């Protein structure tokens, strides 16, 4: 019987396991499907990781290495090259591996940290032929950075998510021509620093409110892409077509938390995040099962994944050592121009000084204010100079504000100041 089984050994799982160990759990297992720990960080060889956490600029593998190093001083055990096939509310974890075959492991608590996957061409229904040369940005990144292969020479990128922006620069550095980055929305989905450093610095044009309307092929490979400007209803405007001769299309059109195990375990899901509904301590609707990182909601910065996951690991330790939290839960609702909140529920009695709340806004804001309401009553407000959908927002809700809410739920909203 394990005190804790952590599903996934990426940044979230590593931080959760470490933190649970620091809080006194002894018998901890990380199950990782890849042949090494670190998750997607291993292919993110650019720098910019760890500015918040370590106050320095690390590459992805360096950031992962910091946490893997920390693990060495603990008794946390790791199963690599091992796939979790099923978990359930009895805290059983079904795993399979070439070394050990099929096993059912039992744990007192579980942390879900499976990360996310990329949205594909099929999810957004791009018309055209289906030749080789259409990649998700992350797959192309893996080929380039881990396997050492170029996937193309003339590239059009659809979507301005961070991986796409990073790949625009990376492909350019390796000698490819990145002809355009095309974004459906009137604003970018990526971090401002990536727009500047990965597109502007390399004179790669960003077409906002545009999309790919046709992909053509020659001899089984992408040969041509048509791009159109979109009207207010996101419909292509005839006659605005831009034509690109290219051999490759990279897609950076969003990330989806990978929650098939979570759903199969009967854990309550939030359709807004595609992740589990979680409490203030990252506990899911099944007592003793926690979730953290991109499997709960997609983050921009790994630093915040680590912080969230440390809270989940600590909470798993508290669950095993002290038992289940019993406080009455306050529900968090998203109000005007806020697309979701994490956590979705807060047990105010169990909050120390303040509860962290993360969310995203639906549009770009300048000089704005975040408001917390209990019905009509304004409980708190927070000023922001700039907010954008591509940048996760965070507020700290003091305990006394939570205690003052009468209606059983509070609403987070955003507006111009």
């Amino acid at each position, binding site marked *: 019987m394990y005190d804790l089984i952590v599903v996934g050994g990426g940044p979230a799982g590593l931080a959760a396991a470490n933190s649970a160990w620091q809080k006194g759990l002894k018998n901890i297992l990380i199950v990782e499907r890849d042949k090494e720990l670190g998750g997607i960080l291993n292919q993110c060889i650019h720098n910019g990781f760890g500015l918040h956490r370590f106050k320095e600029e690390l590459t992805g593998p360096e950031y992962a290495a910091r946490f893997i190093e920390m693990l060495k001083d603990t008794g946390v055990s790791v199963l690599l090259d091992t796939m979790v096939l099923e978990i359930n509310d009895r805290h059983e974890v079904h795993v399979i591996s070439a070394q050990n075959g099929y096993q059912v492991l039992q744990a007192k608590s579980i942390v879900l940290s499976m990360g996310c996957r990329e949205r594909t061409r099929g*999810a957004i229904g791009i018309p055209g032929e289906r*030749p*080789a040369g259409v990649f998700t940005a992350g797959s192309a990144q893996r*080929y380039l950075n881990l396997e050492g*292969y*170029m996937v193309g020479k003339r590239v059009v990128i659809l979507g301005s998510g961070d991986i796409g922006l990073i790949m625009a620069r990376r492909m350019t550095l*390796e000698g490819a021509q990145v002809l355009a980055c095309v974004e459906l929305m009137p604003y970018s989905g990526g971090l401002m620093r990536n727009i500047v450093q990965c597109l502007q610095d390399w004179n790669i044009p960003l077409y906002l409110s545009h999309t790919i309307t046709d992909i053509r092929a020659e001899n089984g490979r992408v040969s041509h892409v048509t791009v159109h400007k979109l009207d207010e209803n996101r419909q292509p405007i005839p006659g605005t077509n831009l034509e690109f001769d290219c051999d490759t299309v990279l897609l950076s059109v969003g990330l989806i938390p990978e929650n098939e195990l979570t759903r199969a375990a009967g854990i309550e899901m939030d359709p807004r995040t595609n992740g589990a509904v979680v409490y203030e301590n990252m506990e899911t609707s099944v007592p003793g099962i926690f979730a953290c990182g991109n499997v709960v909601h997609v983050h921009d910065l790994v630093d915040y994944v680590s912080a969230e996951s440390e809270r989940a690991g600590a909470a798993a330790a508290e669950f095993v050592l002290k038992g289940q939290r019993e406080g009455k839960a306050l529900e968090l609702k998203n109000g005007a121009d806020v697309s979701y909140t994490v956590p979705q529920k807060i047990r105010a009695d169990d909050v120390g000084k303040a509860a962290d709340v993360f969310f995203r806004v639906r549009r770009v804001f300048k000089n704005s204010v975040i408001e917390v309401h209990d019905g009509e009553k304004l409980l708190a407000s927070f000023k922001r100079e700039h907010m954008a959908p591509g940048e996760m927002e965070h507020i700290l809700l003091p305990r006394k504000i939570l205690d003052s809410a009468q209606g059983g739920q509070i609403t987070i909203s955003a507006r111009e100041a």
Partner: protein
Amino acid sequence: MFDVAVIGCGVIGAAAAFELSKYQASVVVLEKENDIAMGATRANSAIIHAGYDPKPGTLMARLNVAGNAMTEQLCKDLDVPFARIGSFVLAFSEEERATVQALYERGVKNGVPGLQILSGDEVRQMDPLVSPEVVCALYAPSAGIITPWEYALAFAETAVVNGVELRRSTEVTDLKKIDGGYRIETNRGPLEARFVINAAGVQSDKIHDMAAPHAFTVIPNKGEYYVMDKSECYRAKHVLFQCPNADGKGVLITPTMDHNLLVGPNAQNISGPVNTGNTAEGMAFVRAKAAQTMPSLAYRNAIRNFAGVRANTDKDEFQIGIAAEHFIDLAGIKSPGLSSAPAIALEAVKLLNECGFAPEKKEHPVLTRRKKRFRFMSEDERQAAVRENPLYGRVICRCETVTEGEIVDAIHSPIPPCSVDGVKRRAGSGMGRCQGGFCGPRVVDILSRELNISPLSVLQDGEGSNILMSETKKEAQA
């Protein structure tokens, strides 16, 4: 000189080859693509139709009903995923009620078993998400769903095991009548065969015209589809057809054997070179039509679009027969071709007999095939599979739970795949919600290792579809 050359290895050519492989005859199958089942067979509705649709008295009616009846046992023997889940043809108006009645009567004449007309409420009891607008439906319990490329692979692999020679990437460019048979010109040199069977799908009119006077013209007709994630499979428990009308056969919604939901197709004649690209108009048409059957259908969980091309002709009938001396057409095989395939294969043998070719049966032909599918195994079977081959413990495709063992087995199967999509059709890797985003690079790696080729030579699909372009830092190493 071969006894028989089959031109084309879609499900029709494959089924014919399988049937012929039971006889003492030398058979060669010529396929222009680098894998089998690359045309209509891999991109269709994946339905084994009951047989109420074709006009009574046609070959289509007879072979559909006969083929349907053969499918279940064949799929058991050859280990092909098939389920007789039944189908509805939904009527949304009194006018369509009359169509349903007419289809019922046609079906009875065609010998379709078990047909019933059910009320809208009865339909919704069996398939709760069907539109409240449905007034009645034709229920055909003998309709089924199948994995069509696997069906063709099962036929072709078993034929190969029985000694049939398959030549891929071999395109027939001309046929010349010679004494006692044909000289067949191909891009890879000539060969000779006493009898030729034309199963060339969309190209079957061109092949026909090489040996016989022009008799029919293929009018390629494209159909576009959505594939939805497994989380949407619950939406349909039966094949949900709409009434055929002036706009075509209507759009269907059906579960698939991989527990996805399939929505489509439209029907668009194409002129010019055949391509299977999707179009914004086609996809919008499918969405609009499908909403009629199931208003709650949403596309948030779509995982792929595809399009297939039907070998429709200017004749409302399969073109099956002896078209010239020693030359047999299995041509113009449109819907219900997949359903009819095994019956068409029997027809081919009969026609060969009529041409005077009646070989003896082999004493012990292989008539069965077995595949290991980790995702459908019990815990004990999984444990046993890993013990026997540790590669069955390494999951490569996480969405579909396909192991390295299955992928390696596929690569060394009787018709070895030479592309990532070839592996996909055999093992199921990359079929799921991430569409190969995670497993693609691993499958490239495994193909490169098992075939002892550079990853740069690994194809996505057909010829020329190389995935990778060059090594990085090549000049630095040199």
